C-alpha cells in the first residue's frame, strides 16, 4: 500500500512510524518478540554479526538470550540448513533435560561449500545416522563462551572428537578449519557460535560450480 493514500487520511501517521510498526507487530500471529529487559545483554562478536538482526530487530541477540536454544537457532537467518538438520535428526531432543549446550553452528554458506545439494538431501532423507554424527561434531555439553573454549585450547564434541580452539585475532579458529563469524549468542542454558566451515568427518562433495538446474 503506498504511503500517500494513508497519509492523506491520517496525516499524523507519517510522524508515528514507531507506533505504526508496533501495531503491525501486535496484529500478527507470531510469538512475542519484545526484548526481555531483565535478560543480560549478550555481546556477540565477529564479522557477520552486523549482517544479522541487531538492536531491536526481531531476533536480536538480547531477545534470543531468553529463548530455548531450538527457538534461538530458528531466529538466526544464516542457520537454516543447520537448524533444519538439527531438528530433523532429533539430536538435541536426545540430550537429558536441562543439559547445558554449546552449539558450533556452521552457516548456510558453509554447508553449501561442503555438500552438494544432492548429497545433502541424501543425508537429510536417507542417512540419519551419518547426519546425527555430523551434528554431534558441532555440539558440546556446557554453555561455554568462546573465550573459555580458546582458553582451554580444546573442546570435546558429542561425537567424541576433541578439537583445537585457538584465538586468532578478532575471531577464533576451531579444528584448524573453521573460524567464528559471530560468536557468543546466548540462549537458555546455551551458547551459540556461528562458524564458517562444517566440522566432523564427512567428505566434501560440493564441486564449487554450485548451482543446480531448476
Amino acid at each position, binding site marked *: *500500500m*503506498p*504511503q*500517500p*493514500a*494513508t497519509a492523506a*487520511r491520517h496525516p499524523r501517521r*507519517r*510522524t508515528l*512510524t514507531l507506533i*505504526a*510498526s508496533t*501495531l*503491525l*507487530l501486535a*496484529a*500478527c*500471529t*507470531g510469538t512475542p*518478540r519484545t526484548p526481555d529487559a531483565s535478560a543480560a545483554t549478550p555481546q556477540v562478536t565477529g564479522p557477520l554479526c*552486523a*549482517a*544479522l*538482526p541487531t538492536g531491536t*530487530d*526481531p*531476533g536480536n541477540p538480547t531477545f534470543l538470550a531468553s529463548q530455548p536454544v531450538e527457538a534461538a537457532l*530458528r*531466529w*538466526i*537467518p*544464516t542457520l*537454516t*540448513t543447520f*537448524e*533444519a*538438520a538439527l*531438528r*530433523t535428526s532429533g539430536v538435541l531432543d536426545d540430550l537429558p533435560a536441562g543439559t547445558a549446550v554449546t552449539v558450533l553452528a556452521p552457516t548456510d554458506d558453509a554447508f*553449501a561449500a561442503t555438500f552438494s*545439494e*544432492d548429497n*545433502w*538431501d*541424501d543425508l*537429510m*532423507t*536417507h542417512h540419519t545416522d551419518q547426519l546425527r554424527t555430523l551434528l554431534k561434531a558441532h555440539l558440546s555439553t556446557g554453555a561455554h563462551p568462546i573465550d573459555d573454549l580458546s582458553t582451554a585450547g580444546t573442546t570435546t564434541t558429542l561425537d567424541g572428537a576433541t578439537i583445537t580452539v585457538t584465538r586468532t585475532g578478532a575471531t577464533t579458529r576451531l579444528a584448524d578449519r573453521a573460524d567464528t563469524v559471530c560468536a557468543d549468542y546466548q540462549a537458555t542454558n546455551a551458547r551459540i557460535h556461528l562458524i564458517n566451515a562444517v566440522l566432523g568427518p564427512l567428505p566434501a562433495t560440493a564441486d564449487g*560450480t*554450485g*548451482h*543446480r*538446474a*531448476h
Partner: protein
Amino acid sequence: MRRQRTTLLAVSTLLTITLTAAPTPASAQSAPQPRQVTNLTVHQADGYATLAWTPVDDATDYQIERTAVDTDGTPTAAPTIVGIWRPNRQINQQAPTFADSGFNPGDTFQWRVRARTGTTEQPYSDPVTGTTTAPWGNPDTPGQQLRTQWETTHAAQYTSDTDEYAYTAAIDALSDRVRVVELGRTVQNRPINMLVIGHPTPATTPEAVAATAPVAINCNVHGNEPGDREACLIMARQLAFSTDPRITDLLRHTTVLIVPTINGDGRANNTRGNSTGQDLNRDYSLIRQPETAAYITMVRDYRPVAGYDGHEFGNSRAGDLPMLPPRHQNVAQPIFDQSQDMIEGHMYAKGAEAGWWPCPYGCEGGGNVGLSEETILRNTLGLKNVTNSLLELRSSGGQTRPDEGNTANNRRRKTYSALWTFQQFLDYHRADRADILTSRADAIKIQAANTGRLVFRGSRPIPAHPAPHPGDSPPPLDATPANLILDNAPCAYKLTDAQYNGARTDGPGGVGTTVAQRIAAHGWKVITTTDGYYVPLNQPERGLIPLLLDPTGVEKLTDGERVYPTLTGRRNGPLTVTGFTCAANATINGPVTVRAGAALVTTGTTISGPVTATRAAGIMLADSTVNGPVQITNTTDAVSIIDVTIAGPVSLTGNTTGTDLPLLAGSTIRGPLTCTGNNPTPTNLGVANTVHGPRTTQCAAL
C-alpha cells in the same frame, strides 16, 4: 466471510510516490558538473523503489547509493552502495532504471546515483529522499492487517507450515474472494493447499473455474528455495483484500490459483527434494510422488491456461529474474511462442520500466541449464498447452547488489522481485488473454492432429539478442540427438494389463501408483478392448504421451507397444469397425458402423457417410471431416472430437465414460447438436465449437 467495508481507503498498488531531486539553492544556480547524473527520480512500490535518471555520456556503469535517514533527513547509518547498473540490465539503455530493494519496507532513505567511466567515479547526483512503501495492507482494516511470519520477523524467519495454514485460513475466512482447497497431502501428511481467488467470489467447482481461463502459480517446489513462496503469500492478501480497481478487474476476468507449498516436507526440512529425497521438479510427468500427482491432477481439473513456477538460482552472474519458457520440442509452437512473448515481450519491457532485470534462464555463465526434461514443470505444462515460464530469483546479491551479505536484505530483494513478477504475470494474462486462449486452442488442435515427428529429448533454441541486452546470453542450444527422434509417430500405444494395472515400486517407500492411475491424473483418454489398453495420440497432450509410454522414452513409465494406423488411403463401401481401428490420412466413402466394444480413432481422415457407434469402447476423431450425421451412443471409455468438420447432425447420447469427460472441441458442426444423458457431461476444454444448429442442454455451452 465478511462484507466489504465501504470505508476502505482507496489504495492502489499502481499508485506510486514520485520524488524528484530538489536542488539546493546553491546547486540550483549552478549547472551540473560534467558527467554528473541528473534528473534522479525515485518511485516507491511494494518492497522496492525504482530509481531512474538521465544517462551520462560514456558511462560504463552506475552506482546506486542508499543512506538510511530519520524523519528530518539526517543520516542514521553510513551511505552504502546497494546497486550496480549495467547496460545488459534492460532493453532500453537510454532510460536507465534500477529497482532498489532489500531495505525494511516503510523505512526512509536518501538515494544518490553516480556514473563510472571505466573505473573512474563521476560526481553523484543530487540526493532524493523518500519513505518506502510499508508492507501492504492497512493495519487497521480486517484482512488487510494480516501479516506473514516472514513479514513480522523482518525476514529473519520464513513462514512456517503452521503459520501458512493459519494465514491462508484467515484470508479464506475474511475474504469472499478466496477459497482454500486441499489438493492432497505430502508424504509426511502435510496439506497441499491452493488458494482459489476470484471476484466477487471464485467459481464453485473446478470445471466452473476452468471456464474462467485461470492462471496458476506454483510457489515452492524446492524446499530450500522459499523466496517465491513468501511473495505468493503476500500477493494472496493483496488479491483478497485490495480495493484497487486493477485488482478487482483482474479477478473479474479470471481465477488466480496459488499453490504456496507443494513441497511442505522439503520446506520444513529445508531440503531441495521431498521427504524421500526426490527432486519434485523431476517428477511432474512421472508423478511418482503424491505432491506432483496432486499438482498434475489440479492442472487436469482446473485447466490453468497460464502458469509460473517459482525457484531460486545459485548463479551469481545471472540477472535478478531468470525466466524460461517450455522448450521441449514436442511443445506446440504456439505455446512456445506465447510463453516467449510473455517473457521477452512483457517481462523484459516491464522490467525496464520497474528496474528489475529479467533474463533468459542461464544468463551469463548459466552452464548446462534450461533443458528439455519433460519431468520439469515448465515443460510438462507446455506439453499440456499451458503458456508458462520458470522463474528464478538469483540466490545471492551477485555483482550488481553488493549489500546483500545481510540476509534480510537478500531475502527481501528476492521475495519482492517475485511479487513484482507474479503481479506482472497477472497483468499479462489480463492484457493478452485472447492471444493466450488462441494459442492454447491452436496448440490443442495441432497436438490432436498427431502430425510431425516426436522427440524424446531436445529443446527449441532461445534466440540471442545482440549485446548489451537482457537476452544476450541464452541457455544452451540442446539439440535433439538422432536416436531420440521418432519421425513416424504411431497412432496409439497399447499396454498390457500387467503394464496398465500392475503394481509398481517407484513411489515413496517402494510403493507406486499404477500406470492407470497416473494416466488418469494426466487426464488422457484410454480405450480398453479385448486385447489391451490403448492410449491414442490424437489427444491434446499428444507430445507428452510417448515420453511416458514409448520404449525410447528417456524417463518413461513403461514400454508400450507402438500401434500404427490400419486404415490409410481410399476405401469404398460400408465399414464395420471391430477391435481397435485407426484411420490416418484416409478417405472412407461409405457408412461407418462401430460395433460394441470396438474403437475408432482417426486423424486427417475424410468420411463420406454416417458414423454410428453404439456401445463402442471409444470414438476419437481429430483433424478430420465427416460428411454425414454422427451418432455416438452408450460409449464406455472415451469420446473425443477435436477440430472435426461435420456436415450433419451430431448426437452424443448416454455415453458413460467414468471420470473421463467426453470432449467436443474446436469443431464445426453443420447441423443440430444433441447431447443428452451423458455422464459425465461433455466439455470443450475452453476451445469453442461452431455449431450451425440448435444445441441441447448438455452441449448448450460448448
